[in-house]
């Protein structure tokens, strides 16, 4: 069952950037409620309270009851616009959720038992292809997360959507292929004893560069070679 929280909001007058900026100057964040074949409502939320909600994991999977002018609206946060530099929330979209509504939502992937994966123990790297999986599910039954067990995974193995047990009525939006969620990639450490030696040589070169000026051309050539080696890091 999807968690339902409450959030204090106020209806706001006016739309557009002028009105939205005025709202932001007042310490609030403009937002909109839309969907369910009803007219959109412009609202605003206290910035501190919104920030607090955003810090709690699963903001976009949590249903909210918003009370505006005495009427309650059950909504699901769909999008949060953020400032590109400060990452402060600038605007929030809420989707009205009617009775029996089905929605597509991104659900986080959680990896467990990393210590039981022989591949990761041997220095393999967990390459997460998808941090979230988009699924279609009833709005009242949004999965909290998908737990993926890494036990027994060797280097070169992968986890695909077919290996994940999905709850009832939950279907991934990508159905035409068995997409990859994560792989255990080969470690870069194994092959790099040679690279480490090259690096040590390179450091010596840099020290030597300060002392001997005559060998500049030769060193440049060597440096070029070591850079190529470095790119493989």
């Amino acid at each position, binding site marked *: 069952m999807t968690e339902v929280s409450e959030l204090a909001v106020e209806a706001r007058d006016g739309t557009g950037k002028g009105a939205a900026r005025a709202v932001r100057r007042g310490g609030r964040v403009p937002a909109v409620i839309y969907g369910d074949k009803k007219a959109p409502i412009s609202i605003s939320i206290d910035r501190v309270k919104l920030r607090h909600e*955003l*810090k709690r*994991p*699963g*903001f*976009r*999977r949590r249903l909210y009851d918003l009370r505006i002018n005495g009427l309650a609206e059950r909504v699901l946060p769909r999008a949060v616009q*953020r*400032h*590109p*530099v400060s*990452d402060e929330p600038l605007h929030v979209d809420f989707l009205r959720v009617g009775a029996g509504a089905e929605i597509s939502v*991104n*659900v*986080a992937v959680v990896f467990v038992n990393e210590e039981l994966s022989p591949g990761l123990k041997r*220095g393999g*790297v*967990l*390459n*997460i292809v998808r*941090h*979230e999986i988009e699924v279609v599910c009833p709005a009242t039954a949004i999965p909290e997360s998908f737990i993926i067990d890494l036990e027994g995974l060797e280097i070169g193995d992968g986890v695909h959507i077919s290996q994940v047990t999905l709850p009832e009525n939950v279907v991934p939006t990508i159905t035409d292929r068995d997409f990859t969620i994560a792989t255990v*990639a080969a*470690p*870069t*450490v194994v092959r*790099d004893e040679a690279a480490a030696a090259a690096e040590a040589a390179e450091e010596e070169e840099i020290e030597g560069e300060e002392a001997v000026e005559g060998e500049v051309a030769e060193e440049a050539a060597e440096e070029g070679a070591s*850079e190529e080696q*470095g790119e493989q*890091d």
Partner: protein
Amino acid sequence: MLSPKRTKYRKAHKGRVHGNATRGTVLNFGAYGLKATAPGRVTARQIEAARRAITRHLKRAGRIWIRIFPDVPVSTKPTEVRMGKGKGSPEYWMCRVKPGRIMFEVDGVAPLLAKAAIARGAAKLPMATRFIAREEA
């Protein structure tokens, strides 16, 4: 070092960096990243230095992504040459970075290690930056 394979023109105008980034402002690959909070020009050499600093601190564990590419040629004039007589020859490559741009991403390592590694990378770059981590959806 990073550089374009081929270019349409050999030399470019100096240019200025105005405004904030509108693209490349959220983490796309890794769980941690380095975001520019001030404008600047990053040279291919600086990108490589930052990449090496991060990779070495991570001891080659995890993965690293570079989200900027130096595609602007910078020309310089030789020393002791009077002004005029045309533009100098291309010497190195740089990219213009706007505030908000994610320059590096890291994944597959512990948060504290990622933060320390990214701080070392940030020290090689010419502008103010900020460490960012992925928030759970």
